[in-house]
């Protein structure tokens, strides 16, 4: 079935197809449309699930985790400040090893306040134990939800999963989406078998027990780490299986025109579709440019990335996030993944852009490709670039002048 869906609509459909039974919810822009769509289906009787609007994301995530720990399939969604407010519980429920799916619709963090996207919200959850799948199209959102349940519920993994889509750019953009039929879904995603992770009085289970001394604690943390890493081979496996059923194959990475590429853009999320456009134009102009986009960020597919970048001369890492005092988070992740690889690219160049929904233009992609090619050739790596145009700077300086004139007047 083909439908025109927003990214949010696609996320709701993913939940519906996956047959999640319980949805604790809390509104926040730009995610709210997801829970509204689901609640609409429940009210009209189209969907048999339970939904409760809680008093905050903190309680929402707690309810999601505990419900998952009773052995049912759970879905929830949030954005930005909501994800941060729930952060304490993200870490806590991940430790319970009870899988469920959390959709995060990326929106930049306060302050200043905005509603538009970047990735600092979801990257704040990077070390929580949740796996992370990053989407760049509405089709990928629906499919990733099914993949996410299958991945998290796999006995080798057993961890909750975040499916991330960019606010506005994807959440509110309509694209044609093929909805997998029920036959496909039932073959790909059988009913959740929680095995021992459920509540049974005759077979009691304690979650989140105290373990002082460090040894037990370390054991459980290492277990979680291994489980997360198992996600790499599990994802590769189920991504193929999904492809066999639907014709849409999902691997750990999207490699776009990378085969003979000398310069590669490395980035996540929906802005990668902009990069593709730039790649096409640069190719038309005879340049060997490609795009590498990890779908999974946790676990981090470092071997697959290193393999994909073999023979590449320069990588332009485009971070839509900023770790103040350090720089781009993807850049640091990529650099550490490549350090021990002999035939690693000669130049890794860091670019930060697209913060708070700021566009990245074609011209900026061309410039990034140019700078990176130059660095690969000269061996001189330029310092990280924070994308900002002369016009933007002039505008902000104008505003600053007005503001400081106001201040002086007061004095």
């Amino acid at each position, binding site marked *: 079935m083909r439908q025109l869906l927003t990214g949010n609509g696609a996320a709701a459909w993913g939940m519906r197809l996956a047959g999640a039974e319980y949805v604790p*919810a809390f*509104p*926040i*822009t730009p995610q*709210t449309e997801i*829970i*509204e769509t689901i*609640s609409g289906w429940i*009210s009209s009787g189209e969907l048999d699930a339970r*939904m409760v*609007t809680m*008093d*905050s*994301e903190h309680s929402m995530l707690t309810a999601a985790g505990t419900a998952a720990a009773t052995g049912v399939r759970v879905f929830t969604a949030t954005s930005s*400040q909501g994800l941060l*407010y729930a952060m304490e519980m993200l870490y806590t429920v991940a430790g319970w090893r009870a899988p469920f799916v959390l959709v995060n619709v990326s929106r930049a963090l*306060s302050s200043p*306040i905005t509603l538009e996207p970047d990735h600092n919200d979801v990257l704040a959850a990077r070390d929580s134990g949740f796996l992370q799948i990053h989407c760049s199209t509405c089709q990928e959102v629906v499919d990733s939800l099914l993949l996410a349940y299958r991945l998290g519920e796999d006995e080798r993994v057993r961890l909750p999963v975040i499916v991330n889509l960019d606010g506005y750019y994807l959440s509110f953009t309509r694209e044609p989406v093929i909805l997998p039929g029920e036959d496909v879904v039932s073959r790909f995603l059988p009913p959740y078998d929680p095995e021992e992770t459920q509540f049974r009085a005759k077979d009691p289970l304690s979650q989140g027990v105290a373990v002082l001394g460090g040894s037990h604690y370390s054991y459980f943390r290492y277990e979680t780490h291994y489980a997360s890493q198992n996600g790499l081979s599990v994802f590769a496996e189920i991504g193929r299986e999904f492809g066999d059923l639907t014709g849409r194959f999902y691997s750990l990475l999207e490699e776009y025109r990378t085969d003979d590429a000398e310069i590669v853009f490395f980035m996540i999320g929906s802005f990668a579709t902009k990069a593709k456009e730039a790649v096409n134009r640069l190719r038309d102009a005879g340049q060997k440019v490609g795009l590498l986009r990890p779908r999974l960020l946790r676990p981090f597919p470092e071997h697959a990335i290193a393999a994909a970048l073999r023979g590449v001369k320069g990588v332009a890492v485009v971070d839509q996030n900023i770790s103040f005092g350090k720089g781009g988070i993807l850049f640091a992740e990529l650099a550490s993944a490549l350090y021990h690889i002999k035939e690693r690219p000669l130049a890794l160049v860091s670019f930060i852009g697209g913060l708070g929904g700021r566009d990245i233009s074609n011209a900026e992609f061309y410039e990034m490709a140019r700078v990176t090619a130059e660095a690969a050739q000269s061996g001189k790596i330029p310092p990280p670039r924070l994308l900002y145009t002369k016009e933007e700077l002039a505008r902000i300086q104008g505003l600053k002048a007005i503001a400081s004139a106001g201040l002086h007047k007061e004095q």
Partner: protein
Amino acid sequence: MTEKISRVRHEYLRHDKKFPHVWCPGCGNGIVLGSLIRAIDKLSLEKDELVLASGIGCAGRMPAYVDFNTLHTTHGRALTFATGIKLAKPELTVLCVMGDGDATAIGGNHFIHAARRNLNLTAIIINNQIYGMTGGQYSPTTPYGANASTAVYGHIEHAFSIAELAITAGAAFVARGTVYHVRMLDTLLAKGIAKRGFSVIEIMSNCHTQYGRRNNMGDPVTMMQWFKDHGVSEQKAKKMSDEEMGEKFTIGVLADKDMPNYMEEYRRIQEQAQLK
């Protein structure tokens, strides 16, 4: 009269920068803003000594429009930001404006503890019985049986009364007004701001867009009429039976206690400790 209005407006509003405002035409938030600046004018407070902090929501947009020190914070946390300001600079007059969701759902814990602590702050809670900004989801003050975007067959949870919650939590001054009873609202706000202790002014206000439309009151006038019919003074309420009260609610000053506020207690204990 018009001269006075325009003076007050020019004095306290960022009239040339931030207008038109984002609120729906007829939203009660504008009435509250008007009332607030009249109350401040009446108290002759200096703009520099005023701070207006808010959380997030339609109500939370208010600081953008006033020419005081302002702080637009995160959803639910306005009172904690205000606490920080007040403890660092007790000489400032610190006001907080919040929605019902902001103050009593995601920020409910801060609300009861700020009341209990009795800091000299003023909490202005615009109770429109719904999450306005995010699309009409029920809040802790949505009445049982009312419709919301998340309760299309009627709400099955029970609302609590913000004013009564504040009284129980120990607030020094608690009042309830409505956007219909505007003159009374001017007075309640002035009294609350002047009070040297934690004061709460709950203001019943219309969100006809998200609440009204779903509950047969789709325009501001109908909602105003509802406030007019349902707000009763305490004296009157005392003489009414539970049945007569029904959905009606009391308006006016509901609690006014004289007790040392947090800073006064703090100074007392500091002096005591230094004596030893």
